[in-house]
């Protein structure tokens, strides 16, 4: 096991990191404290504590249902976008073919273009085919930016894998599917995990497309959160804080679960890792 080596530059970097996190902790705690506070005026801490805001939010938005929907939507989006995106990333990383630039551009655009440009016609299409207003519509709409996102993040990872490894698998009789499942997937675990987490974060946080395509049963947490934040009318500051904490809590659970399954720094080259000291 290696200790983090302490070069002067190292100290500076860690100092900056620590400073960043101390302040970040302040940011997060201030919301957390506020969400449990009764009244908090010009003082260090609220004058009392309560869980009332959580209860209110829970009832008002039937949050249990909303959270279930959110989890379902994000899980589906993550899985589908990886399934659709990773093979395309593979082709873009490995091959040169006529028209590659055009294809690449087409995959880039959905990330660049704000949903304002295509959200409403997209929702129309989805309503026309009976997807919107239902979970499937929300999932499909969210896939639009997610699939290109996976493609873009995965491409460099795939480039890093030595193609001869794949050749070897093919020579052993592995078809494309087997090459993907048995060779590439394990080697790309860090990449898959990174892009899955990022897609997850984006999906859970994607308000616009979700709102446009969601029906009453398929609202996700972010819609409730945006509503509580920006709907006309009066809402206690603390209840917005409580919603934000619920949102973050859910994401945190998802992230920790994801990190339990796979370690982001799990190196395939781990065996060649820097010698331990």
């Amino acid at each position, binding site marked *: 096991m290696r200790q983090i080596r302490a070069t002067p*530059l190292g100290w500076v970097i860690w100092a900056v990191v620590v400073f960043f996190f101390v302040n970040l902790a302040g940011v997060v705690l201030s919301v957390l404290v506020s969400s449990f506070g009764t009244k908090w005026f010009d003082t260090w801490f609220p004058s009392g504590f309560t869980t009332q805001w959580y209860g209110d939010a829970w009832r008002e938005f039937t949050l249990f249902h909303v959270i279930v929907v959110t989890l379902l939507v994000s899980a589906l989006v993550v899985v589908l976008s990886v399934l659709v995106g990773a093979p395309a990333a593979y082709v873009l990383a490995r091959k040169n*073919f006529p028209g590659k630039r055009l294809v690449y551009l087409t995959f880039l655009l959905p990330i660049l273009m704000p949903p*304002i440009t295509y959200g409403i016609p997209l929702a129309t299409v989805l309503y026309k085919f009976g997807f919107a207003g239902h979970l499937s519509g929300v999932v499909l709409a969210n896939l639009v930016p997610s699939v290109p996102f996976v493609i873009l993040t995965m491409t460099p990872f795939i480039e*890093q894998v030595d193609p001869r490894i794949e050749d070897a698998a093919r020579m052993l009789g592995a078809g494309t599917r087997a090459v993907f499942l048995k060779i590439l997937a394990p080697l790309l675990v*860090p990449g898959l995990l990174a892009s899955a987490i*990022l897609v997850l974060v984006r999906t859970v946080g994607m308000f616009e497309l979700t709102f446009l395509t969601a029906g009453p049963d398929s609202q996700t947490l972010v819609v409730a959160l945006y509503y509580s934040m920006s709907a006309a009318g009066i809402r206690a500051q603390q209840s917005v804080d409580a919603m934000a904490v619920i949102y*973050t809590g859910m994401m945190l659970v998802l992230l920790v679960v994801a990190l339990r399954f796979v370690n982001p*720094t799990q190196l395939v080259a781990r065996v060649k890792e820097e010698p331990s000291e």
Partner: protein
Amino acid sequence: MSATWQHRLAERGVDRRLWLLLPATIFVLLLFVYPFLYGLSLSFQPTDGGGVLANYSKFFSDAYQRDTIATTLKIALPAALLNVLAAVPIAFRLRGRFRGKRLLTTILVVPITLGTVLTAQGLLNYLGPTGWLNRLLLSLHIVDDPIRLTNNYWGVFFSLVITGFPFAFLLVLSYLSGIDPTLERAAATLGASRAQRFRRITLPLLAPGLATTFLLTFVLAFSVFPSAVLVGNPAGSTRVISLAAYQAAYEQYDYSYASAIAMVMGAVELVVVAIVLVWRSRLYTGSTGGKG
């Protein structure tokens, strides 16, 4: 198809494996390209009449609107750069094995879960004039008046760093994991110091990944919207272009104009992206020895 043809095509990269592109292509064509073209054509049909390009000339002839491009770039470029640049040394230090590594990585990635709203609320609470930070500074007599860190440029900037850094970090760390440490060791035996090894070996091999990371963080920062409103000064110094589009669409209900602004927004992004991609395409982008 004759075998000769097949060889010709295979040499140019056209072979069976191209089918893998199909699902994603169909998907994007069906669910994106059509709606997008619709939006594009909408931007050429101004609500108030005028020529095809009326929306665009309206945008560019109005300094109030046009300036949003510069405003946005002024926020997005530094934030994206900072995120990527800060992620590199930290990720670099987290390679290899040591105690507590997993915990440390998790902590570094955690801010990704915060979301814009919590970040915004937190920044307002914590950095606000009566927030903990100002309270501390005041009670330690470091400052006399509360410093303003929210509802201006800095608020938005911080929020972009908080949400963008873990994102960049996660990607950089993962890209870094694909580089064979033996290469660095080889460089060490050739007399390269730590800094030189980093600069000459790790960085070039990492660069394509960095380019991608920068692109993604830049795109996220460029379309910054909720935090520009919540912790920025949406009427003034943080009136970003997405806000202009939003106002056109949802305050003035001029979807055509909004589409045009969004198209301009996309085009500006595309310029930056294209520059980075051209740069990236000149880099070495192959096996980095780490995975095989």
